[in-house]
């Protein structure tokens, strides 16, 4: 597949000279996705589920086809796909509903310092309210989660394991399949934050056997405001809804109501129709590109990037052994925020900050890091321009000393 041709699908690459290396935050959106949104907004634009006219029927159909597409992507049942506002909402749904109902005082919840705040904080809240204990998998010298270290903190009190599949700050792939297997021997429920995994590699929930898994559309060429919670059907069925109102009900009495089956009982009110339809288009787009190509491309570029950065003096890479297209570094003596302004002048879009992973920043002993994150549409030229920008930043600030 030809990257130059792929890049034609993205307005910014056609019309701007930008180097976009902030893909872990959000990816750009291809024309196919924008077209799908426009189709809905122009030709339908109506509500779903409740209409008995053709437009509404077509909108409903497209919305539910999006669910079917997600089910196909994850290899799960149609009814196991709950649409949410994003990964954060999805993970909060698990904690608020499953967590609050099943965690008791003294129970332990295993998580890690490598988590995104959205994977950690919902469980911090459950632990606080329920008087349970958060337990952190000790990270190894590279700051990785390992199966060995996971075993060390597993106890008979563990009730939930909440871990990322790929760290958004370090790009490590968690050995989640082995962890799930071990957890299940003790009937422990495992919640997987797959926000950085689903966009970049095939994820098969049947094969992983995870209990819950979450991801966002906007990190995989899809629209903002849409994400997915996958949950095993029998778990979802047992869970209480956390939002109540239109569409999620069966019968409504004045003081008692009954709710629909999963997934609908978790989707209150008018759904995020357009964004779900856009997510379907995004998945189809990625399927056309192919995950083989995505992995190949990202691997090639990551190797090139790490190699080129290692040639530079005065640059510290925090994860030289990253498994994915996420590379964290700092320029010695230059605050990441200062460096970022130089990158911006060079039209290199890259992130400086704590990447919603403050606990990890403490482990790294950094207030912030610079993160370059790749996607299949990036090129070696992008990396060359990043390297030039780093050199310029160094030169520029050295000038002042």
């Amino acid at each position: 597949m030809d990257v130059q041709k792929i890049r034609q699908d993205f307005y910014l690459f056609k019309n701007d000279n930008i180097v976009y290396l902030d893909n872990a935050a959000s990816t750009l959106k291809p024309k196919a996705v924008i077209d799908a949104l426009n189709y809905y907004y122009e030709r339908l634009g109506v509500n779903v589920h409740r209409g008995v006219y053709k437009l509404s029927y077509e909108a409903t159909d497209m919305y539910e086809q999006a669910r079917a597409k997600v089910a196909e992507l994850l290899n799960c049942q149609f009814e196991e796909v709950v649409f949410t506002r994003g990964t954060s909402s999805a993970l909060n749904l698990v904690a608020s509903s499953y967590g609050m109902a099943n965690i008791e005082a003294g129970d332990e919840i295993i998580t890690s310092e490598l988590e995104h705040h959205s994977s950690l904080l919902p469980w911090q809240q459950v632990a606080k309210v329920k008087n349970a204990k958060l337990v952190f998998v000790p990270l190894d010298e590279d700051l990785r989660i390992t199966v060995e270290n996971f075993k060390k903190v597993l106890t008979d009190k563990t009730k939930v394991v909440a871990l990322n599949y790929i760290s958004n700050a370090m790009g490590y792939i968690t050995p989640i399949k082995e962890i799930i297997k071990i957890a299940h021997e003790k009937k422990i429920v495992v919640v997987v934050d797959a926000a950085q995994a689903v966009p970049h590699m095939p994820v098969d929930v049947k094969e992983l056997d995870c209990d819950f898994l979450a991801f966002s559309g906007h990190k995989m060429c899809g629209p903002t405001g849409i994400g997915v919670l996958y949950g095993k059907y029998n778990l979802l069925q047992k869970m209480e809804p956390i939002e109540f109102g239109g569409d999620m009900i069966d019968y409504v009495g004045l003081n008692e109501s009954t709710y629909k089956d999963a997934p609908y009982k978790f989707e209150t009110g008018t759904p995020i129709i357009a964004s779900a339809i856009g997510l379907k288009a995004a998945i189809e787009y990625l399927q056309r590109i192919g995950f083989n190509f995505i992995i190949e491309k990202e691997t090639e570029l990551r190797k090139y990037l790490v190699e080129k950065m290692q040639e530079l003096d005065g640059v510290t890479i925090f994860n030289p052994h990253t498994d994915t297209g996420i590379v964290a570094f700092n320029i010695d003596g230059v605050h990441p925020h200062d460096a970022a302004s130089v990158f911006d002048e060079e039209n290199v879009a890259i992130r400086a900050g704590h990447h919603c992973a403050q606990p990890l920043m403490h482990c790294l002993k950094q207030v912030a890091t610079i993160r370059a994150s790749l996607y299949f549409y990036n090129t070696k030229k992008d990396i060359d321009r990043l390297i030039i920008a780093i050199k310029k930043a160094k030169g520029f600030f050295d000038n002042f000393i």
Partner: protein
Amino acid sequence: MSYGNLETLYRQVIMDHYKNPRNKGLIGDETYYKVHLKNPTCGDDLTVQIKVVDNIITDVFHDGTGCSISMSAASVMSETIKGQKLEDAKKILKNYLQMVKGEAFDEELFMGDAIVYQGVANFPARFKCATIAWKALDKAIFIHDEEDNS
């Protein structure tokens, strides 16, 4: 290679205040008004202390960690407003905020070294860095005024 914009952002005087900050370090004196502000996104963490005698800011200290813009701005702020009447300090503060936002501002008003932060207007993403010290000052004055009125 030209760094026009960047150079106005990081003028020598800014880098000088960054490397050799004035009035840095806190004082353990309860009569000072003290404000602590943070910007978690980039890790900026700043404390500002002011002493007010007869409506004059007689002393200023600051301490913290952060990027060159936020740290130098704290130094510049401290130098600029030390010795000013409260009402003048407020005017400078307002003028400074307008300037770094890229809005019209009073070029005649005394601003000390603070005038060199004009370049920030081209870097809206750095607005927070350039203003954290001044926002802390604003809060400190606010606390003073509240106490004064009660």
